[in-house]
């Protein structure tokens, strides 16, 4: 009860009330302001939707035009004479030259070779960290660790990229004796730095949404803490965990600066995570600034962008659906 309310009840009220406007009018005015604010917020929501829709349209409009000058098959492979002038089928991305190559296969493989290991590494640490925060950590530990993780999310990716390029790459090469100093795995470790906080905070939130009576029930049935976590809380929040991991993967696919600096940027068709790769994002970042607007390569890069956008959109959509399902289940 606030001081004013207390005074109103104590009979000091009349004097106070007389100075302000009549309560009815005040309420009408408040409602009007409230409605205005509501409208403003609604507008903001719609602007977000409109912006996404417009980006979609713009990307695809430019991207689809690539098919006008480049036959669709050339986004998979093209033919090139080898050193003995025998025609060979090649799958490479090399858009500058006499016979430009636009195969998307090395780029998609490159993106996956970074995003999947990064998601794997980050899930291990992120989920463990999230569970610890939500279920195990005491209040003081939580008060230190949670802001620290959020701080980690704020480290500029170019700093992480530089760290990978200068230090981590040599460490990994010495440890695994890789042929390429800069490779997909170095990029993946770098990217996992960025998505651990994303996953950890989401897992923490998801597990906190698990109703307390489930935990209490488990304890009442004689389960210890470990059993409660592994058999009750985590299964109940499983869809939240999956959503967190999917969202992390979406971020990993979209991460640009770290992979540009740490993967070595060789657009080769490979499934070895210790090979040097070039991701879709790095290709767009490195090449788009230098191509004449409206040219063939410009449109091909937009096609790469459309593909990337579709992929991340689908992943984010999936995580959203999973979260919705969890909410419905827990409310029951």
């Amino acid at each position, binding site marked *: 009860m606030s001081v004013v309310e207390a005074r109103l009840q104590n009979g000091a009220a009349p004097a106070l009330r007389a100075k302000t406007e009549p309560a009815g009018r005040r309420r009408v005015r408040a409602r009007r302001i409230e409605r205005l604010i509501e409208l403003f917020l609604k507008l903001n929501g719609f602007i977000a939707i409109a912006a996404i829709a417009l980006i979609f349209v713009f990307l695809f409009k430019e991207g689809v035009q690539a098919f006008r000058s480049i036959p669709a098959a050339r986004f998979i492979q093209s033919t090139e004479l080898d*050193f003995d002038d025998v025609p060979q089928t*090649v799958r*490479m991305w090399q*858009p*500058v030259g006499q016979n430009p190559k636009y195969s998307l296969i090395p780029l998609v493989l490159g993106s996956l070779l970074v995003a999947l290991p990064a998601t794997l590494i980050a899930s291990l640490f992120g989920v463990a960290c999230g569970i610890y925060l939500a279920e195990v950590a005491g209040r003081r530990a939580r008060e230190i660790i949670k802001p620290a993780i959020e701080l980690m999310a704020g480290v500029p990716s170019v700093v992480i990229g530089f760290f990978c390029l200068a230090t981590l790459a040599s460490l990994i090469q010495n440890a695994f004796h890789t042929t390429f100093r800069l490779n997909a795995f170095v990029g993946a470790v770098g990217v996992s730095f960025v998505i651990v906080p994303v996953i950890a905070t989401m897992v923490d939130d998801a597990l906190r949404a698990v109703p307390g009576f489930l935990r209490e029930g488990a304890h009442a049935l004689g389960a210890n803490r470990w059993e409660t976590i592994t058999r009750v809380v985590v299964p109940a929040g499983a869809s939240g965990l999956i959503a967190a991991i999917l969202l992390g993967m979406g971020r990993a696919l979209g991460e640009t600066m770290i992979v540009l600096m740490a993967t070595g940027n060789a657009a080769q068709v490979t499934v070895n995570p210790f090979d040097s790769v070039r991701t879709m994002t790095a290709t767009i970042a490195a*090449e788009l600034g230098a191509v*004449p607007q409206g040219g063939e390569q410009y449109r091909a890069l937009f096609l790469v962008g459309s593909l990337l956008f579709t992929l991340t959109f689908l992943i984010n959509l999936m995580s959203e659906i999973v979260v919705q399902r969890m909410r419905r289940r827990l409310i029951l």
Partner: protein
Amino acid sequence: MRRTLSMGVIALAAIAAAAIRPAAADNITVKGSDTMVILGQRWAEEYMKSHPDVAIQVTGGGSGTGIAALLNGTTKLANSSRPIKPEEIEAAKKNGLDVVEFKTAMDALAVVVNAANPIEKLTIKQVGMIYTGYINNWKAVGGPDKKILRYTRESNSGTYVFFKEHVLNNRDYAADAQTMPGTSAVAEAVAKDPAGIGFGGVAYFATNPKLKIVKIAKDEKSEAITPLAGSGKLNFEVVWSRTYPISRYLYVYSAGQPQGAVKEYLDWILGPEGQAIVDKIEYVPMPAQRAGN
């Protein structure tokens, strides 16, 4: 409140004044080749010292970027380490621009390996086969039994295109060639990598003790020639005579015949003062009789 307001007004006025001032003087923007950024900036600095009324901004981004900016009208001059392409001239004509070319300096591309690599010389063809992926082991060219790790540049760099056209004969780079953001990054990578090979302007490699510049022969019968003179500097004679096989011109392009301040600047670049700077930062000045094209 009033004080913050008046301070804001003063700050705005200051910003406006700062924004207006350069427009009053002659403002020249130069954009393009990363190879030429250092050269362009030194030219600009020296020129502005003697011509305080002229403001020159030099930025890099790659030859392709510079020429694209010239065609979009966002820069007055474009630095390029490769000649302009026919389709770029075509695009310029569509925009109503007539691009004029100036050969302002020469440069030679050195091929570089790690200092620990015993290789001393390669033919152009061998370098081409290495970079196209037909030679994958140093053993095939007389070196140790080690997989070759190729370093190249981003496709927007003039160096990339020059090398592709002149050394690779327009074939594609091997897919596992790692793309580096600049020649200094190539130098850095090859210095760290005993099996690495890279290429770029001599100036980036000559002073690094962990790197070795390889002698290049035109073919098996020709003598392999180093772009270095005895003192660890670039040898002008082999570039002027074009006996060193991987040499090129460095161009400045202007949209239309240069006029006024831009013309004066270009004349100065091609004159003795500008060419002295070319020499100073280890590029090759134009031979005197051909200066000014």
